[in-house]
C-alpha cells in the first residue's frame, strides 16, 4: 500500500469501489456541505470535492474536504491547475494531508471562459500530468517540485481524470498511459452514456495492460430530465450522450423522468461491471446527492466493504 487511503484499501482488496461527488456551495455555508455529505455517509468509499468546478467560485475544495472529514466521510480532494501556481498547490497539498486528507484528484480544470469570472487569468503554471508527477515526487521522494527536501511527506493516493469521448480518439488511450506513467494510481472517467465507445476505449486500455497498472473507475451520471440530457449532448464539451438516451428520457412524462434517469444509470453500471478493467464507479449526481444511495443499492454495491 502506498497510502492510508480508504479508497486504495477498497481497490487493493479487489472490491468494486464507489465514489461520488460533492460540489461545495457558493457561499460560506458549512451546513450545506454537511447536508450533502449526510446523503453519502456509508454509501461511498470516497467523496470527490470539486475545486471551483465549471470555473465558478465556490467554497475551497480543501475547506469542504475538511468539513466532510469531520462528518466521517473520506474526502477526495480535487485540485485544478487553473487557479494556482505550483507553490500554492504544494502548500495546499501539505495542508490537506496535515488535516487528514489522503486522496486527491489532479485536473487541469474547465476554462475560465465557462465560469462567472471569465475576466480572470488562467494560471496553468503546470498541467494536470505535471501535477500528478509533482504529487508523486512529494509522496515517494519527499521532494518539492523545486527539488528541495520535504520533511513530512504528504502520502496522497493519486487520481486523475480520463475522457474517452473527447477527440482525437486515438490519443485517449495514449494520454491515459501518460497519466499512469506520471504516477496516477486511479482514474475517474467522464460520465459514460455511450457504453459502446467506452468499451472500445477500454479495449485499447487493456491491450496495453494499463488496467493492471492503475484502477479505473467508470464515471456515471443519473440524468434528471430530458432537458438535462439535451444540454449535456449539445452544450458540454467532451460529453457524448447518444440520441437514444435523449429519446428514452423524452419518452416518459416529465414527472417520471428522474426515475428513468436513475434506471438508465443503474443499467449502465450493470453493463459496465462486465467490461474488463473496470475497478469501480464514480457517480456524479450533480446536486442530486440524495439519489446516490438508491443507485448504489440498486447496482448491488451496498453495503460498502469494511477494510
Amino acid at each position, binding site marked *: 500500500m502506498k497510502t492510508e487511503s480508504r479508497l486504495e484499501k477498497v481497490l487493493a482488496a479487489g472490491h468494486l469501489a464507489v465514489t461520488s461527488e460533492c460540489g461545495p456551495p457558493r457561499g460560506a455555508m458549512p451546513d450545506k456541505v454537511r447536508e450533502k455529505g449526510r446523503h453519502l455517509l456509508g454509501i461511498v468509499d470516497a467523496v470527490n470535492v470539486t475545486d471551483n468546478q465549471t470555473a465558478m467560485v465556490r467554497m475551497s475544495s480543501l475547506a469542504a474536504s475538511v468539513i466532510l472529514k469531520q462528518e466521517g466521510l473520506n474526502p477526495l480532494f480535487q485540485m485544478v491547475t487553473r487557479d494556482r501556481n505550483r507553490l500554492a498547490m504544494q502548500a495546499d497539498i501539505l495542508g490537506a494531508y496535515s488535516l487528514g486528507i489522503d486522496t486527491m484528484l489532479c485536473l487541469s480544470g*474547465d476554462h475560465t471562459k465557462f465560469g462567472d469570472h471569465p475576466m480572470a487569468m488562467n494560471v496553468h503554471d503546470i498541467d*494536470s*500530468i*505535471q501535477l500528478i508527477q509533482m504529487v508523486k515526487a512529494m509522496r515517494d521522494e519527499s521532494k518539492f517540485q523545486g527539488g528541495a527536501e520535504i520533511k513530512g511527506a504528504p502520502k496522497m493516493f493519486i487520481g486523475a481524470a480520463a475522457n474517452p469521448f*473527447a*477527440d482525437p480518439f486515438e*490519443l485517449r488511450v495514449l494520454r491515459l498511459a501518460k497519466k499512469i*506513467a506520471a504516477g496516477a494510481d486511479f482514474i475517474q472517467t467522464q460520465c459514460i452514456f455511450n457504453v459502446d465507445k467506452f468499451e472500445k476505449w477500454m479495449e485499447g486500455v487493456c491491450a496495453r495492460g494499463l488496467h493492471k497498472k492503475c484502477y479505473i473507475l467508470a464515471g456515471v451520471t443519473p440524468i434528471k430530465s430530458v432537458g438535462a440530457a439535451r444540454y449535456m449532448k449539445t452544450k458540454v*464539451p467532451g460529453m457524448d450522450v447518444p440520441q437514444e438516451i435523449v429519446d428514452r428520457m423524452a419518452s416518459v412524462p416529465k414527472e417520471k423522468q428522474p426515475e428513468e434517469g436513475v434506471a438508465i444509470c443503474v443499467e449502465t453500471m450493470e453493463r459496465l461491471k462486465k467490461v474488463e478493467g473496470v475497478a469501480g464507479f464514480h457517480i456524479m449526481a450533480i446536486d442530486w446527492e440524495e439519489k446516490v444511495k438508491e443507485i448504489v443499492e440498486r447496482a448491488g454495491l451496498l453495503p460498502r466493504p469494511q477494510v
Partner: protein
Amino acid sequence: MITAERKPLEELIEYVRPYKRILLVGCNECVTVCAAGGRKEVGLLASGLHMALLKSGSAIEIREHTLERQCDPEYVDELVSMIDGVDAIMSMACGCGVQELARRFKGKPVFPAVNTKFMGASERQGVWAERCQGCGDCLLGKTGGVCPIARCAKQLMNGPCGGSTGGHCEIGEDVDCAWALIWERLKELGQEERFVEIMPAKDWRPGGGSGPRKIIREDLAE
C-alpha cells in the same frame, strides 16, 4: 510579428482633447503589416480625430509622421525636428514603440493609439492569430512545429484536455485544438512516439517568470 488593433476613436479623442497640437507617429514595421498603425492608418486616424473634434467645436493641429521602426532609438531621432511646439504625442506603434517615444521625449505626454495584442501570423487576408508567447525556451521541435503554450487555451504540455472536440478547442469552434494539430503533424512526420514522452513542468524564468527580460549580446553591445 507583433499584432495590434486600433483603439476606439472615442478613447483616443479623450486623450487628445486637452491639446492644441499633437504629433501622430506611425511605424512601418509590424503594425503596418497588420494594418493597425502604418502610414495609411496614421492618415485615417488624423482625419478621424480632426472631424470628431471639429464636430464638438474644438480644433486640433495634427502633425503626421511614420517612422521606419519606432522601437529603435536611431529612427526615433528623426522626430526631434518635429517635436517643437507639440503638446503631446500619439503613437500608433506597438507598446514597444510607445515606450521608446516616452523615453526619448521626456517632457511630452505620449498616448497609445493601438492595443498591442500578440505575436502572431496571418492566417488569411485580414485574419491574424496568436502563435508565440515568447516563453524563452522554444519547444516547437518536440511538438511538430505547433506551440501548445501559445495555442492551447490551458497551456497543456502533455496532450489535449477532455474538451477537445472535432479538432477545435472547448472555448470555441473558431479556435483550433493545438493538440489535435500537434498530433496530426506528428503523424505526418512519423513522430508519434514524441507524444508519449512526458514534458516536465516548465521553467518559466526565460518566459518572464524572473522579471523583465533583456538580451545582452557581448559581441554587439557597445
